[in-house]
């Protein structure tokens, strides 16, 4: 009957809570048998909701979930052949280790000898032999976690769901458990679906990573794909450290950013298309530069730059220059901030330290430049309505607009309102703005910040600014009449 090898298929699942908020927004995901899939995202991104929908603790508002091709969307959790390892273990405090692990088997009315055998086997798998008759409260966090895993795998589920199982453990313990989990997965051959907010954990453990944000899947791919070829700014920013810059794709294999042109390996973006460029801090080569200024004339001179270890790739790479602002020792490497003469900031990681104040040259290989489509235009788009009083209503407020913008429209007309990202004015005091909101997401683009502001009415507004804001800051939003353009709406 089964047409594919998928053990779990999530098809267009949405979950809307009573307050109208979508925790999952049209999510689709297929998991192959025996795979280790990690759902990764910041808190509140819907990853736990997705897991709970698969476990059956929550029912999807729309869409369906298939297990081995069979619809289980409405099946109650106790009838699903999946088991969960809970974040806070959820061991039964009134039962000892043995009875906790045997809980599921006893419900299935399996004979005593088999139960004993299987419980012992499960405890052995998680390295908890000889703990059978211990009180669960007397175990350490790591031991409780092991028992929780044993309690789930003893039922030989088709799929094991793990909800941030290592979040409560300390760093050292977490690293050890990660390796053990990976071993267990290999040995048991059970499909693992693992939820975490820890990107390193996701990259270490998984065959495939599902990156989620705001209820939507951003990218699905192998850890290397996700890291090296993030599809958008969110993924690039969330997975590892990155330099994200606004740039222009000049033509295939040629991109401009930081006021320079670079060779790259990306194609198919069209000509002169605005794009986002991601460069990982460890992919930037850095050396001390003798030429003080970054001029085209000194390109030849750059060849003579200081490079005692011969570690800078030779060739026709575009180079750019800057001054080291700060340098922090991170154990293995130094993490340095470098400011270019034209005002862009780069984060660079290198085994060599370059002290603040040093003029340095930088280059990046074409294959290390990741080009992404811009998610948004360069202006905000809102639906609006022309009012009788000569104002325009959008974002649940009334705004003054220039005469010439208003001229083609009559009162009551639906219009499309365009506001450029860099012309939205943010005020420290929320009452100084026409409307107020909260800084929801921040992305540093080398020389400016790209903010997402969520208004109190729930609209999103994108803002380019050079001012520093923190996530969660309350702001007043002001838009000058000359910054508002009106286009005929539908």
């Amino acid at each position: 009957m089964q047409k594919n090898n998928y053990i779990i298929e999530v098809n267009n699942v949405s979950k809307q809570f009573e307050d109208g908020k979508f925790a999952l927004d049209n999510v689709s995901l297929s998991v192959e048998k025996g795979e280790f899939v990690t759902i990764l995202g910041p808190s509140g991104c819907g990853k736990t909701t997705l897991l709970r929908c698969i476990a059956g603790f929550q029912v999807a508002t729309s869409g369906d979930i298939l297990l081995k091709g069979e619809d289980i969307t409405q099946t109650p959790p106790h009838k699903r052949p999946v088991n969960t390892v809970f974040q806070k273990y959820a061991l039964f405090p009134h039962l000892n280790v043995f009875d906790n692990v045997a809980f599921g088997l006893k419900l299935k009315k399996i004979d005593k000898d088999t139960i004993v055998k299987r419980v012992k086997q499960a405890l052995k798998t998680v390295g908890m032999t000889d703990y059978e008759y211990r009180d669960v409260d007397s175990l350490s966090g790591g031991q409780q976690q092991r028992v929780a895993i044993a309690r789930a795998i003893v039922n030989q589920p088709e799929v094991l769901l793990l909800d941030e199982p290592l979040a409560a453990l300390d760093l050292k313990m977490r690293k050890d458990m990660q390796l053990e989990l990976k071993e267990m997965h290999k040995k048991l051959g059970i499909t693992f679906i693992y939820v975490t907010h820890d990107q390193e954990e996701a990259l270490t453990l998984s065959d495939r990573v599902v990156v989620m944000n705001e209820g939507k899947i951003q990218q699905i791919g192998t850890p290397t794909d996700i890291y090296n070829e993030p599809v958008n700014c969110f993924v690039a920013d969330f997975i590892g450290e990155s330099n994200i810059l606004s740039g222009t794709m000049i033509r295939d294999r040629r991109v401009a950013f930081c006021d320079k042109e670079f060779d790259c390996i990306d194609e198919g973006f069209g000509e002169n298309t605005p794009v986002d460029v991601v460069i990982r801090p460890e992919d930037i080569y850095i050396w001390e530069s003798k030429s003080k200024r970054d001029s085209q004339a000194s390109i030849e001179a750059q060849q003579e730059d200081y490079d005692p270890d011969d570690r800078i790739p030779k060739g026709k790479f575009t180079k750019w220059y800057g001054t080291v602002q700060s340098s922090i020792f991170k154990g293995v490497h130094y993490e340095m901030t470098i400011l270019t003469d034209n005002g862009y900031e780069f984060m660079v990681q290198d085994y060599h330290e370059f002290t603040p104040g040093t003029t340095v040259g930088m280059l990046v290989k074409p294959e290390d430049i990741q080009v992404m489509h811009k998610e948004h235009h360069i202006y905000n788009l809102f639906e609006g309505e022309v009012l009788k009083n000569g104002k325009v209503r959008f974002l649940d407020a009334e705004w003054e607009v220039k005469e010439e913008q208003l001229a083609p429209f009559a009162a009551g007309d639906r219009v499309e309102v365009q506001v450029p990202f860099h012309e939205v004015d943010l005020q420290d005091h929320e009452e100084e703005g026409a409307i107020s909101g909260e800084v929801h997401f921040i992305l540093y683009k080398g020389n400016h910040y790209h903010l997402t502001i969520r208004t109190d009415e729930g609209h999103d507004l994108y803002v380019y600014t050079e001012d520093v804001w923190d996530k969660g800051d309350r702001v007043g939003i002001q838009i000058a009449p000359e910054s508002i353009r009106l286009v005929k709406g539908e």
Partner: protein
Amino acid sequence: MNKLTAIIGSRRTWAWPYVLFLVLFVVLPLLLIVIYAFTDPQGHFTLKNFLQFFQTSEAVNTFIYSLAIALLTTIICLLLGYPAAYIMATAELKTPAVMAMLFILPMWINFLLRTIATVELFNMFSIPLGEGALLYGMCYDFLPFMIYPVYNTLQKMDRSLIEAAHDLGANGREVFQKVILPLSMPGIYSGIIMVFMPTVSTFAIAELLTRNKITLFGSLIQRAFGEGGLQMWNYGAALSLIMLVIIGLTSFFGNNDEAADQKGGLL
């Protein structure tokens, strides 16, 4: 001077008034009860008081009847109170705190006043007073003492335990049997003790709600001290001692359970 501040500052010093209070109002009276119970009015040692109790069938019957009434009250309170507490703790009520408050609210009024009001209520609807009225009154008075500790334990219970049980294949009934009920035992024990202890020794409720037709053990003790005159004090003390032992046994049965110290109810 330093010595004085040391004495005042010491926690031990501040404990003295309480020790004195406990000695005067708890230990001494208890000792007096024991002494009175084992002596005759002349102050000689005797077991006559206990013999008198066990030989008077009326007294023994009253004793057993009181235990039965107290037990019945406790069972009814448990049967009524547990579901109430369960609903309050688990159902997604918008105002569980208000619900809990409403159950506790009657306790703001003195129970004698409430009992008198109950009598009037029965009279108003011409329902005869008697055993039924007595049970009704006792349950009405002591139900909150059952609901509150059970509600407390149920509310503190980790929701994910229920989900874990479902996840492992338990249906609704099995989840209740194997997880919720065992985990709410501490609350149930507290509730049982808090209902059983006062009901076994009550007398005012019985006198009011049965118009003195039914005598409970508490009433016997009260009569021995109140109406019997000085020579009956020794008998009264013996009866009190018997009741103390019974109550002591119940609380022992509660505290002895391992579960009680795991996730404690109200006691």
